[in-house]
């Protein structure tokens, strides 16, 4: 209804268009470092002021601050003992007043003050007669009566670092990661013998495999990011890993050599690295769920991992189809892709942390993105027809489908 009133600037003669003159730098002669640091100093002063006198009245809340405790892990290091690892990821200090196990108050010991400052960690030891094979729930009662509950899905003795468990978890990693990758490498003679058209097909298939792996790792990282204590911003970690890794890898490529294009061996190395990082995350997850009794690594599961990860080896050797790589290089490539599974299983079994798992998975995603990009470039140099030929598209889809089908054998 109302019409817009366009303000008309007074045509004042005293306002004359000034002649263009060199802009005088503000701050005059102050040194450059001062100009750079002055805002930071001011910021620091403000922070100190806030810490000393507290924020201005408007921010004061009449209700108690939101308490946030994250139970990162519950270990069962011995019969009749529980160890709860917690971190305060909330905005304020939290006081743990009491502990309940399975709805019963229980005595316990905190390794430090009961007042847990922001980002501080504690381990609570509880002499509780947990029952093998049964679930348990531990609740921490804070000063204000809030409860934070963590669950033991299936109670079983947590592994401690000794030869037996190192061996067990090494074997776990070898089965799930190392053996499959090396078996996959044995396809090299095959891909070397097939025609150019079929190499393109298998390269497409490799891209398909990797895209699926990347998506899988992304989902995993987002899932575990939800377990990360609030202040550590799990989702932001994912973003950091996913975007940061390909950027770092690209920058490293520029820095290492002047050549713009990578050699097929370098591409294979990158693929192995990407798969290795993914497998590190996978190893962490397998180790952790094995240690907490959430999965029992039965025959079926081992076969699942074997099939699922064997295709990763194929992905590594395909770019080398028309190369003559030395055995040493092949072993190194296989180790780069497979051995991180063992390391992951070790770490995950003993010190599972949602934070590190999230980070490793997201770095894996980033690495795979970088690898797919490199493969795509390698591919487009080789096949003028590109990815969209019926055969290559079929390869791409088949790669994803193989991963999907073998993934059916592995629990989510």
């Amino acid at each position, binding site marked *: 209804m109302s019409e817009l009133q366009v303000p008309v600037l007074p045509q004042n003669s005293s306002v004359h268009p000034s002649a263009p003159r060199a802009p005088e730098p503000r701050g005059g002669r102050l040194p450059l470092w001062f100009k750079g640091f002055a805002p930071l100093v001011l910021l620091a002063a403000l922070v100190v002021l806030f810490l000393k006198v507290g924020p201005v009245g408007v921010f004061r809340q009449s209700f108690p601050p939101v308490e946030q405790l994250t139970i990162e892990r519950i270990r069962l290091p*011995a*019969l*009749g*003992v529980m160890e709860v690892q917690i971190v305060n990821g909330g905005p304020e200090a939290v*006081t743990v*007043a*009491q*502990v*309940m196990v399975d*709805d*019963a*108050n*229980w*005595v*316990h*010991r905190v390794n430090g003050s*009961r007042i847990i400052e922001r980002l501080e960690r504690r381990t609570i*030891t509880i*002499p*509780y*007669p*947990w*029952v093998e094979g049964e679930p348990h729930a531990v609740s921490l*009662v*804070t*000063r*204000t*009566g*809030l*409860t934070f509950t963590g669950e033991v899905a299936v109670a079983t003795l947590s592994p401690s670092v000794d030869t037996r468990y190192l061996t067990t978890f090494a074997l776990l990693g070898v089965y799930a990661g190392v053996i499959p990758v090396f078996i996959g490498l044995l396809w090299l003679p095959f891909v070397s013998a097939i025609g150019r058209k079929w190499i393109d097909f298998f390269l497409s298939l490799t891209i398909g495999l990797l895209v699926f792996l990347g998506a899988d790792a992304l989902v995993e990282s987002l899932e575990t990011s939800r377990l990360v204590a609030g202040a550590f911003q799990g989702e932001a970690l994912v973003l950091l890993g996913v975007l940061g890794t390909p950027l770092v890898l690209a920058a490293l490529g520029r820095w290492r050599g002047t050549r713009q294009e990578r050699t097929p061996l370098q591409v294979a190395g990158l693929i192995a690295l990407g798969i290795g990082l993914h497998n590190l995350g996978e190893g962490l997850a397998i180790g952790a769920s094995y240690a907490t009794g959430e999965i029992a690594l039965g025959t079926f599961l081992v076969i699942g991992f074997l099939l699922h990860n064997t295709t990763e080896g194929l992905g590594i050797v395909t770019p080398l189809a028309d190369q003559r790589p030395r055995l040493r290089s092949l072993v190194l490539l296989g180790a780069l892709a497979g051995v991180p599974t063992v390391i992951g299983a070790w770490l995950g079994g003993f010190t599972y942390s949602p934070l590190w798992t999230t980070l490793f998975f997201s770095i894996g995603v980033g690495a795979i993105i970088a690898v797919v990009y490199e493969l795509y470039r390698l591919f487009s140099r080789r096949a003028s027809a590109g990815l969209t030929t019926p055969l290559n598209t079929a390869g791409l889809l088949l790669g994803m489908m193989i991963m999907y089908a073998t993934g059916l054998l592995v629990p989510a």
Partner: protein
Amino acid sequence: MARKRDLVDQSMTRRNLLKAGALGTVGAAAAGTVLALPGLGQSPGNQAGQASHHDMMTVGHLSPGSFDPNAFLTHFDAGIVSELPSGQVLRDYEFIAEDREIEVAPGVFYPAWTYNGQVPGPTIRCTEGDRIRVRFINRGSHSHSIHFHGMHPSNMDGAFEPVHPGQSFVYEFNAEPFGLHLYHCHTVPIKRHIHKGLYGAFIVDPKAGRPPAQEMVMVMNGFDTNFDNENEVYAVNTVAFHYQKYPIRIRQGELVRVYVVNVTEFDLLNSFHIHGNLFRLYRTGTDLTRYEWTDVVALCQGERAVLEFTYNHPGPFMFHAHQSEFAELGWSGVFLVEAPHV
């Protein structure tokens, strides 16, 4: 298991009973474990290697100056007594509703609504036929009332006349019938007004009195500290495990009378069980003939009972809810029966 008979081992026995079959061999393992964790036990009477008795327990102590359940146990408020021209005894009380943070387990604080700053409110003690006059002042942040159980005129019932913050009201009625009653806030939402702490025991003695005894009042209550409509803390007289940490001393061969009132919110029933003995049960205390001779009584919210018993054996005896969950979340205590001094 032949063990030294002391409080330590009694608690162990109780724990075994409560955990029933679940413990078994694992319990033994736990006992061994505690050995490896010196300093876990909280009790000063803790003996090295015998620490497992204290496993199922809150840790730490109440802050100095908190509500003392041991004092509350035997404190009966007779009011300010005077005589009306008719000869009737008049008892004057002043009840002030106020918001207060109370400690329901060591280190766990609950934002309560209280009568006179305490949960449960003062135990009113009078004799049948007395005139009761309660001046109620609401200094809380919400409207409240006092609804007494017993017989009284409609306008003294506290159900339809909420007393708004800053206002006051005088409840006046004759105490009848004799028995064990209770009072509580009847302002809506009632569930919250009760579980936040507005309740107490109201004892009306028969004119001829009851036989002399060591008397105590136990209000079975619970606290939903995280407001999920389930209690995190159970107790008699508010503080979880208090009478287990500080046993109630009673004398061997002497009559003990416990006035038990259940005000527990959210749960359908609460119960009272004593070890090593049976009690004579007087439901609601309105009859002087024994209703039953038993060792467990279940009471729904608002139900109450007078229990009488005499211990003939000295030593510590557990008393607790026979809902194991309630017992494990704080509703457990110990009677320490002391042999008469020679």
